């Protein structure tokens, strides 16, 4: 496996960075009314689906209505979290100066408070993408997702933890900010978490309040059906977003890095790491929208603050640049990527770390041994 630093010559890295910067600039210069109209349409659709879903559950005694209601609500939650929330909170629409599209003010339909998420995701994950011990999205502090993570009998439960995480994904994302694993290891004190916890409790109680108390109560005798409907919609959103997100960074060929090899990175090297550390999912336009265009994880990681609807438009060019520099461009259909993630989850539950380690650091350790 070639190390991060040896992939390209310094001149190449620079040229490569420049090409991507140019692509970025061209896209940014082209932003305008169309992008705003697009996101407004998505928002309108999402709100419509949400209202329709909630309304249909008032007729939940009639099974087709219940099913349709849950379907609409699930779609609404997926759109809210992915194409709208994730992207708006990345600042993709800050240039519009519309407070309703402001990354600083947006809240999503998810128990994880936007503010905590902006720190753990926008800042930590997007800055330190796939750097072991720094990117806390590698395994979310509970899973072993990289052979370089030291094995421990605890990890025998890897597949089971992943399944649990998928089911309760929004809660996982919320608790992620607690950095619970670091508390266990004594690297972080409970008292450091008061602020974060306060926000979690506030946000989660509002979310739970509306989905599991208020709306069920409003439907009177149908309360249990409404409760089940809302729970199902949350579950659908959880499973879907877990799948999309895990396919973005954990299929087999995706690489991870060590802190040493990413020290003093230039802009070009940073771009390089984003490409090597991400994977796309192929699919049609609707699939891309429902995944919040995170099916274009590579483009998203290169340009996290460019409106996601632009990713499919620039993907061809990004891929061409990768080819030009002999870089991999990981992509594949959803089932293939999911299967690859699943295999990894199982394999890494066990101490043996074949195939070859994926980080240069581990490579060196191995050679030294």
């Amino acid at each position, binding site marked *: 496996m070639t190390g991060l630093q040896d992939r390209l010559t310094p001149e190449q890295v620079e040229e490569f960075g420049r090409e991507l910067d140019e692509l970025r600039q061209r896209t940014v210069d082209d*932003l*305008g*009314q*169309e*992008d*705003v*109209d697009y996101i407004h349409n998505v*928002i*309108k659709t999402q*709100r*419509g689906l949400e*209202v329709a879903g909630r309304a249909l559950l008032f007729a939940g005694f009639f099974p087709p209505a219940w099913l349709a209601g849950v379907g609409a609500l699930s779609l609404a939650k997926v759109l809210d979290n992915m194409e709208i929330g994730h992207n708006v909170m990345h*600042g993709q629409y*800050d*240039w*519009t*100066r*519309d*407070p*309703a599209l*402001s990354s*600083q003010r947006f*809240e*999503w*339909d998810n128990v994880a408070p936007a503010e905590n998420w*902006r720190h753990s995701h926008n*800042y930590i994950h997007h*800055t330190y993408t796939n750097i072991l011990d720094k990117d806390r999205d590698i395994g979310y502090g509970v899973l072993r997702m990289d052979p370089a993570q030291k094995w421990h009998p605890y990890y025998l439960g890897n597949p089971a933890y992943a399944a649990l995480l998928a089911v309760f994904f929004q809660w996982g994302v919320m608790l992620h900010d607690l950095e619970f694993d670091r508390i266990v290891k004594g690297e972080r004190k409970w008292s450091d978490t008061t602020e974060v916890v306060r926000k979690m409790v506030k*946000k989660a109680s*509002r*979310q739970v*309040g*509306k989905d599991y108390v*208020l*709306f069920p109560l*409003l439907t009177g005798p149908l309360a249990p059906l409404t409760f089940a409907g809302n729970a199902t919609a949350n579950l659908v959103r959880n499973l879907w977003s877990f799948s999309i997100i895990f396919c973005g960074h954990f299929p087999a060929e995706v690489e991870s890095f060590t802190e040493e090899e990413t020290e003093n990175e230039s802009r070009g090297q940073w771009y390089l790491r984003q490409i090597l550390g991400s994977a796309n999912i192929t699919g049609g336009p609707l699939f891309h929208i429902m995944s919040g265009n995170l099916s274009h994880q590579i483009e998203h990681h290169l340009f996290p603050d460019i409106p996601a609807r632009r990713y499919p438009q620039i993907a061809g060019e990004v891929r061409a640049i990768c080819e030009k520099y002999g870089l991999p461009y990981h992509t594949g259909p959803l089932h293939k990527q999911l299967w690859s993630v699943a295999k990894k989850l199982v394999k890494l539950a066990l101490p043996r770390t074949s195939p070859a380690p994926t980080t240069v650091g581990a490579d060196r350790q191995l050679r030294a041994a």
Partner: protein
Amino acid sequence: MTALIPRRVRSLASLAEALLTPHGMDRYLELVDPMLVRREIRGLVTAVRKQTPDSVTLTVKPSRAWPGFTAGQYVRLQVEIDGVRRTRCYSPCGSQYDGELEFTVKEQGLVSGHLNRAIGVGSVLNLSTPDGGFTLPAARPGRVLLIAGGSGITPVLAMARTLVTEGHTGEIVFVQYSNGPADALYRTELAELAARHPGLRVVHAYTHSKGGDLNGFFAPEHLARVAPWFRDAEAFVCGPKPLMDAVRDHLGERVHTEEFTPPALTFDTANAEGQVRFKRSGRECANSGKPLLEQAEEAGLSPEHGCRMGICFSCTQLKTAGRVRNAKTGEISGEEDEEIQLCISVPVGDVEIDA
């Protein structure tokens, strides 16, 4: 019994808010009708009229959240141009007792140009709460001198109309400076107003053509001729800076002005030192000596802003550490956790902003 109703309405509203969490009611209401929002102020354009070829007069019906304004104040108007919300300040020029707002906008600059060209009956604008201390004192002065130049007429006209609605019993002299009769905004309205109200006298001063009640730029004799009592009056002036300066030089203390064109600010970019940290976004840059708004933008942030000249306060952010110089006043402030206007604040050494 009646006391119960608003409470019930209020608890219904908060139930709706709880059900519509996290987005809140407005985000749903606006999809039905943008004028229904409760927390933001919107204005529906109900009439568009051209008084002069290069200006437009809009009648705007504000939504329920509009708190009303005091004559002389300004409002931040926001329009979407090519997907981006742009803001500028305008003074409503109707009486403060009118239910609808009236704006007259000269076609110059991005937002004003857009208001002239692209806004029609049925357009919806975003409005801020009114702001600004250029207002008549609560105890209305007996003698009022109103001086306007060009589009500076708007706040002053609002004052005149408000005084007339109130049935002001003293003397009001309204002097309007314009290039010539064709440029004089609100000529007819002013004439009608004066006809209706015996205490009001309207004087036209032409700077570039003959035939006015007065001719040429403002000169002390102008006042001696049209308002010999000017020393006992309260004077309100709005217009180009030279006009305001000239009146102020002559009248001193008694002049109230509205400054829309700020004095030119100077920045020392050569001797800037220290680091600027934007806390929430984690960005950091070396202080370039320019206003923080520009530095933030150069660092890739896009903080909210409007006028970029210290007027509208849309760029206000919390400074959590360090000292800044106010480029308008030269004042240096080093208080912790202080709200500052990014567009006119220049860091003095290390500064941390919560943005």
